[in-house]
C-alpha cells in the first residue's frame, strides 16, 4: 500500500477549513498546506479544490479577498469566518468521535462479536 492515502469523501471541506484556520491562504497554497500538515500523505486533485472553496464561501464559512502572492502574482485569498471557525471545531469533534468508533470497530476480534 502506498503512503498516499485517498481522500475520504466529505473530508475535503474539513481539511480546507483546517488549512485556512492557520492563516489566510490562496487556492494553491491551500493545497500545499494540506499536503504539508498531513505529512505529505494527503493529496487533493487540483481542480477539485475550487468547487469546494466556492461552496464553503457560499455557506459563509470562508471569506475572500484579492491580494498578492509571495511571488507577486494576483491571487484570491481565503480566510476563516467566525461561523467557519465554529464549524471547524464541531466537525473536528465529530471526526474524532467517528474515527475512534470506526477504529474500535475494526480492532474487534472474532470472539468479541
Amino acid at each position, binding site marked *: 500500500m502506498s503512503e498516499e492515502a485517498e481522500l475520504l469523501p466529505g473530508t475535503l471541506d474539513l481539511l480546507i477549513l483546517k488549512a485556512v484556520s492557520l492563516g489566510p491562504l*490562496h*487556492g*494553491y*497554497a491551500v493545497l*500545499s498546506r494540506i499536503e504539508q500538515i498531513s505529512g505529505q500523505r494527503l493529496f487533493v*486533485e*487540483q*481542480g*477539485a479544490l*475550487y*468547487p*469546494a472553496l*466556492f*461552496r464553503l*464561501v*457560499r455557506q459563509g464559512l470562508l471569506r475572500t479577498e484579492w491580494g498578492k*502572492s509571495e*511571488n507577486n*502574482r*494576483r*491571487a*484570491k485569498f481565503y480566510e476563516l469566518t467566525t461561523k467557519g471557525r465554529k464549524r471547524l471545531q464541531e466537525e473536528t469533534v465529530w471526526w474524532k468521535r467517528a474515527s475512534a468508533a470506526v477504529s474500535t470497530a475494526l480492532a474487534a476480534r472474532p470472539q468479541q462479536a
Partner: protein
Amino acid sequence: MIAAYLSSMVRRFLRRATMEREIEEELQSHVQLRADALESSGLERAEAERRARIEFGSRVRFKEECREAMGGNAIEEATRDVRFSLRSLRKSPGFSVVAIITLALGIGATVATFSVVNTVLLRPFAFSHPEKLLWIYSQRSDNPRTNFSMPEYCDYRDQTTSFESLAGVASFNPSFADSGPPERVQGVRMSASAFAMLAVRPVLGRTLIAEDDLNGARGVVLISYGLWSRRYARDPAVIGRAVNLNGETREIVGVLPASFALPNLDTEIVVPLQPDADPRRNVRNSVNFLRMVGRLKPNVMPQQAHAELEAIRQNLQRQYPGIYTGKIGLTVVSLTEEIVANIRAVLLTIFCAATAVLLVGCVNLAGISLSRAAARQRELAVRTALGATRGQLTRLLLSESFVLALVGGSLGIFLEMWGQRALLRLVPTDLPRIESFSFDWTVLLFACALIFLAALVCGIAPAWLLSRSDLREALVSRGRGSTGGGLQARLRTWLVSSQIALALVLLANAGLLLQSFVRLSSEQAGFDPSGVETIRFSLPQTGYDDVGTIVRFYDQLHSRASAITGIKRDALVSILPLAPKSISFVHFTRPDRPPARPKDTPSTNYRVVTPDYFQTMGIPLLKGRNFTESDDADHPPVAIVSTIVAKDHFSDRSPIGHQILVDDTDHDPRLVQIVGVVGPVKQTNLETPAKADIYLPLRQMPKDGVPWLRNSAYGVVKTSAGAAGLERLLRDTIQNVDPNVAVGAVRPMSEAVTAALAARRFSLLLVGSFAGAALFLAAAGLYGVISYGIQQRNREIGVRLALGATRARILRMIFKEGAVLLAAGILAGFAIALGLARLVASQMYGVNEHDPFSFAMVGLILSVILFLACGVAARRAMNIDPMVSLRCE
C-alpha cells in the same frame, strides 16, 4: 423563503458576468502559481506551464462545478428545476390534469370577476381629483334625492364660496337625427363650466367650454363613446358633423371617454345647459329638474360646503316663503361614491366568492400534493442520500406547484379572455362604466400575482411537511410513508376543515341571495306585464306647442292602433312603472286639512295617462270611475289616486269626490277632483315599497307640462296572445302619424321586471355557481382525506375485522372521523359567515343577513353531501379482506 429564492436568483443573474470573470482569473492564477513552483524545482518555464495545466485537469469541468457551487447559473438552474418538475408531473398525469383544470377554472373565474371590479370600481374616473367633487340633491321629507329648479340652482351657484365652480345637470332625452333615422338618446344638459371643473379629457375633439353656455352661442353637442361606437362606428370624421336634436341643429364637437359617467344619469349626449336662455331662469315656482355637481376649493371640507349650502337654502326659504315647500335640506355625496356605491357590495361579494373558490381549489391541491409528498418520502429520502440538500428538495416541490400554477393560470387567463363576451352578456346593462371594459395591465398584474399566490398555497404545505419530517428514517422504514404521517394527516384535516368552512360561507351567502331573489321576484309590482309592449317616443320640438296638438297626435295614434289586429288596448303614459332613473312627482294638499308647516306638504308620484292606461297595464280600479275621453279641457279637472294616497290622507273618509290642490304648474296649485282609486304600483324598482301615485288625464294636463311630455312619453299596448311582428307595425304606425317623431325600441313590459331583478340575478348566478364549485371541491377534499386514511390504515382495519369487529362498526369509525372534520368546518364556516354578514346586508331583501333558517338549511345540505362523499370513500373500507390486507405486509 420563496421571495428570497427568487431575489437571489435575480441577483445571481445580474452578478453572473463578474463571477464568470473571477472564476477564470482565479483558476488562471492557480496554474501560474503551480508553474512557478515547478519552475523553481528546475523545469523550463514553458514546460512548467504545460505540466501545471495538465495537472490541473479539465478546466471547463471545474469551472462548471464552481458555478454550481456558487449557486450556479440562474437560468440554467431554473430550467433544470422546471424540466425536473415537468418530468415528475408527467409521471402522475391524473394529478397534473386535475390540478391544472382546478387552477385554470379558479384563476379564470377570479380574474374575470376582478376585471369587472377593476373596470367599475378601480379604474380611475374620467375626472381629476374625484375626491373633491360633490354631487348635490335637494332633500325632501319623503325622498332624499330630488331636483332643484333653475332659479334655485343659479342662486346656489352665485352665492357659494366653498366651490371652485358649481354646475347644474339635468336629464335630457331628445330625438337625435342626422342622415340616418331619428333615435331617442338619453343624455344630459350640463353647465359648460362643469367640464373645466371635472377635467375630462375627450377621446376626440373638445369638451364644453364656458362660451358654449352663453345665451345665443352656436349649438354644440358632445357624444358618448358608446354612441360614437354604435352610431358612427368610431369614425373620427364625426367631429364637425351637424345633427338634429329635437329639431334643433347642433354640431358634434367632441367624443367623451368611455369611463365618463354621472350618477343615475345616462350620458349618451351632453349639451350645454345655457341657464340664461332657459325660459324658467326667473320663474321662482318653476319645475325642479336640476342636480348639482361642484368641485370643492382647496382646504374646504365637504361638511363645511354642506353647511354653507344649507345656510343658503334656509335664506332662500325665508326670502321666498311658500315656494320651496317640502324641501327640507340637501343631500351632499361624493360624486364617484354616488356612481358606484350601489354596485360596490354586489361586485365585491362576487369577487370574494370567486377568490374563495380559487382558495378552496388550491387547498384541495395542497391536500393532494401533501399525500403525494408523503408517498414520495422514500424518493425524497433517496435524493437526500444522494446529496440533495433539504433546500433543493423544497425548491423541487415548490417549483412543481409553480409549474402547475403557471400552466393552469395561463389557461385560466386564456379562458377569461375567451369567455369575456359571455360574461358581459350576464352583467346587468346598467352597471356604471362597464362599456369601458377591457383586459388591461392591472388585470394582467393581478393574474400574475394570483398565479404566484396559488402556487404558494398549493406548494407550501408539502414543503413545510418536508422540513418537519426526518427523511433518513423514511428510508429505513421501507417507504411506508409512516414518518410525518401523523403530521401529514393532521395537516390534511386542517386543510379539509378549512375547505368545508369556506364552502359553507359561500353556500350561506348564495342561500341568502337566493332567498332575497325569490322574495323579490314574488313581489307584486302592481301591474300585469304579460302581453304588454311599450314604446318610448319623443315628439318634435316644433308643431307640438300646446296640449291640443299632443292630444290630436294621440287621437290619431289611438284610432290607428285600435285598428291593428293583435292589439287589444293601447294607451299613453308619461313614465312607465319600474323606471329607476325617472323622477316625477308633485306636491298636493287637502284644502280642508292644510299642512301644519310648509315642509310637511305631502308629495306623490305624478303620471299623465290616457283613459285606457289602467286596463292596458292591468292596474285594478278599486273605487270610483276611470277617466273618459270627455275628461277634457271643457270639463272640471279630475284625478285618480292610488290606495296609498287614500290610506295616508283619507283615512277619515272616501277620497272619491274630494278635491285636492295639485301643484303641477309653474304657477299656483290647482284644484282637481278625485274620481277614482287604483291599486298601488312600484314606480321606481321592486325593492322600494309602492309610494303614493296620482294620475291625471292627458286632455287636462297643464300647459307647463307640454315640453316635459313632448320630450318623453310611452305608448303601451296590450297584445292578444300569440301576436307577433308588432314591433315594426307599432313603429310604422307612429311614424305614419308624424315621421318626425323619434321612436325608441319596442320593449315588452316584462323586460322591465326582468331588468329590475338583473343585478340580483347576476350576483345570485355567479355566487351560486361559485358556491356549487366550492361544495364540490370540499366534498372531493373530504373524500380524499377519508379514503387516504383508510388506505393508510388498511392493516389496522384488517386486524380489527379479523378480531371480529363488524363492518358496521368500522363504518361508524370512519363516519365519526368525517363528522369531526365536518363539525369543525361548519362551526368555523358559521363564524366566518356571520362575521361577513355586514358585507351582504345591503343586498338582502325580505330576509335578515343572519337568517337562522338559511344557515340551518345550508348547514344541512352541506352535511348531507359531505356525508355522501364520506360514504363513497367508506365503501372501499368495506371491501377490505382481512386476509389480504394482513398478508400484504
